[in-house]
């Protein structure tokens, strides 16, 4: 039988010193979700340069020059590493949440949160050479 667990108001961020692992997971899932949905709108806006791009002008067409221009910036490459970290954490924690929704792993939900953080960090660090290549 399902029972309720009073976690207190996680929205009251003034209590952050009292937060348990599960509440930090909740906060980070929301934060990474906001970043990803913001990026989604930005991403479609940038890719909209493909509309009306002239293939005959390649590689000087608007789409290619926009992407190459952005990729020439070090700050964009660093933001891409951040985006990967945000996406990986959201996915790993999301898988953790799906298992918990299915009634699996609640007893180890804090360990699975720490595992999500460690794997995210490892993947982000390992991706740095790929993202910074040629800038």
């Amino acid at each position: 039988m399902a029972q309720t667990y009073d976690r207190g108001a996680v929205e009251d961020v003034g209590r952050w010193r009292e937060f348990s692992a599960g509440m930090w997971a909740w906060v980070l899932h929301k934060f990474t979700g906001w970043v990803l949905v913001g990026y989604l709108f930005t991403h479609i806006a940038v890719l909209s340069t493909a509309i009306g791009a002239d293939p005959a002008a390649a590689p000087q067409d608007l789409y290619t020059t926009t992407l190459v221009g952005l990729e020439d910036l070090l700050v964009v490459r660093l933001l891409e590493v951040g985006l990967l970290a945000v996406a990986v954490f959201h996915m790993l924690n999301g898988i953790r949440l799906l298992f918990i929704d299915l009634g699996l792993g609640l007893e180890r939900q804090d360990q699975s949160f720490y595992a999500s953080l460690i794997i995210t960090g490892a993947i982000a660090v390992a991706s740095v050479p790929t993202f910074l290549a040629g800038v």
Partner: protein
Amino acid sequence: MAEYYSSFESGGWGWFLQRITAVVLIGTLAFHFFLLHFVNHAAEITLAGTQARMSQVGYFLTMIVFLVTATFHGVNGVYNALLNQGISGTQKRVAKFGLSLAGLLLIVQGVRVAIAMAGISL
């Protein structure tokens, strides 16, 4: 602490679709990131390369599914976050309408981009 925990009884369609789209996105987002950052590097992407990928029906349809599921999951996630903050009444209706409109416009623009990338002229 509960011995058995499930939140399956707690939700309606929005809750259910958020989980279904999550499962779809685990696959499509991982595929998208891997293909366009590790197989093909973002700095080397060109209009011709994009058109070659988007001209494949399976890839094109995967990207449309990716667009629609990501938009629903993101916009519905923002709506749920706002509900968690305690909005109700008019604020809730405005958020629902505004976010639905934003999501719809994003899907329309995304489909226009996909069609242009596939080199299809309408």
